């Protein structure tokens, strides 16, 4: 029994089919990535998992149970979504952003503990806790978005394009952080990325999404050496 099981998932935006029969599995404690070009349906897939987009048909089982119907209850089931474009709250202070991430946690002491743990891990955020989040650099905003996503202590973290628009050195730090969240934090991670090379090198298992369907799957290293993948996604001849 996998931690997350998606079966025959179909999603449409009006007449446009965004996902056509997606099947995938995520084992507990693994890092699974989904790679694919722009418009392949990667973000739609994550938005469907977190309840923002409603599927037309298909099933999603998380820990063997269907997810709650209302989007706002998905996080209560233990699934946190760190959205594309970070979507931090720019007018909030850094502290308020973290508190928003812990909205479902009612124990004030626990919230403070987790917040302090985030500050310990991200000293750059601790230095500026009363600063408006919109004034942070892109990389710092991504760190804040990840920290905010971890405040509810989810079992499964959905990460959408964490490397988008970041400098190479920062991208490296973000990917190291993702590995750390799994290794030290014990979280399961479903990662959507355009940076196929980095994503495949990091993950245990990967799916390739094209035009709303999975066209290829396999272990990360295996796909890295697959000639078709190298040609289409890694820019090799």
């Amino acid at each position, binding site marked *: 029994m996998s931690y997350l099981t998606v079966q025959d998932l179909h999603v449409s935006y009006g007449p446009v089919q965004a996902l056509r029969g997606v099947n995938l599995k995520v084992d507990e404690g693994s890092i699974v990535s989904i790679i694919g070009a722009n418009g392949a349906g990667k973000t739609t897939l994550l938005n469907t998992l*977190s*309840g*923002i987009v409603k599927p037309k048909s298909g099933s999603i089982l998380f820990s063997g149970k269907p997810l709650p119907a*209302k*989007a*706002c*209850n*998905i*996080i*209560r089931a233990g699934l*946190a*979504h760190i*959205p594309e*474009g970070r*979507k931090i*709250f*720019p*007018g*909030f202070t850094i502290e*308020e952003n973290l*508190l*928003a*991430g812990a*909205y*479902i946690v009612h124990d004030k002491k626990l919230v403070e503990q987790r917040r302090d743990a985030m500050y310990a891990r991200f000293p750059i955020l601790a230095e500026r806790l009363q600063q*408006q989040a*919109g*004034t*942070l*650099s*892109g990389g710092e*905003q991504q760190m804040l978005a990840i920290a*905010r996503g971890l405040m*509810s202590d989810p079992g499964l973290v959905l990460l959408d394009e964490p490397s988008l*628009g970041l400098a190479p050195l920062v991208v490296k730090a973000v990917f190291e952080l993702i590995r750390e969240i799994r290794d030290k934090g014990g979280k399961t991670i479903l990662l959507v990325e355009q940076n196929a090379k980095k994503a495949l090198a990091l993950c245990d298992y990967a799916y390739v999404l094209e035009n709303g369907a999975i066209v290829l799957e396999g272990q990360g290293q295996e796909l890295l050496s697959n000639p078709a993948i190298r040609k289409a996604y890694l820019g090799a001849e």
Partner: protein
Amino acid sequence: MLQNIFFGLSLGAVYSLVAVGFALVFNILKFSNFSHGGVMSFTAYAGYLAYIWIFDGRISGSVMFLAVVLTAAVAGAITAVGIERVGFRRLRRNQAPVIYYFISSITLGILLENIITIFASSNFYSYPVFFSSKNIEILGMSFSVADFVTLLFSAAALAILLFVLYRTKLGLAVRTVSFDVNTASLMGIDADRVVMATFAMSGALGGISGVFLGMNYSLYPQLGQLVVKGFIASVIGGLGNITGAVIGALLLGIVEVALIGMVGSGWMPACVFVIMLVFLLVRPRGIAGVIVQEKA
């Protein structure tokens, strides 16, 4: 001079209640909610009815005043929540363009006005005089008690609102939803409930301002059209900005009183609209409009 400024502040305080009620909804759904005027008319009458049917003869003076204001605030909260259900929820489900909300809000405002006209006809009613001693003397100048109470009460209502917005979890949820509904729901925040709570707060403020307007002027079904004052204050202060709305409203009150002294009450409204137009053209983000740019 000082007396005039004080009178202007007290007038501005009522406008600030209107403007903030207006700004709350703008903040979260990004449209100018003109149904707020209907809520104000409705609650002004609700307070008046509570006075003649329930409270008259039982209590008097400042206790009566409190009872009437409280009734109006509750009535306003309920009405505004009802308006959200009837007029806006379906639009939100369908992710309708903002202009639909705007038109729906104007329609609902006029509808409420017309319903009130059916029952109250177009007659003018007036609130009782709540405060017996009309003036208090400070440093040789006399200030009206009613103005004093208006100022105090508005300040208290706004203080409570700011506390809720910036120091409670509900406030955090409201501010989160006003940034982005989808991201808010990823945090586990139920947008439907938050929108409802926002309308309730806005309606309660509308109720309190309805009573004050009823006391200052008299009761007539179009009383709620004074929502325009709140709208002007919001534009001057920066649409959707709560602090800006308060500053804009206080300024508007003082400017109105000053203009009456300078150009007379006939020309005053025209001048106010010219000021508003200048703001829209020259500084559309208002006085307090510091927009934080989201970095890509």
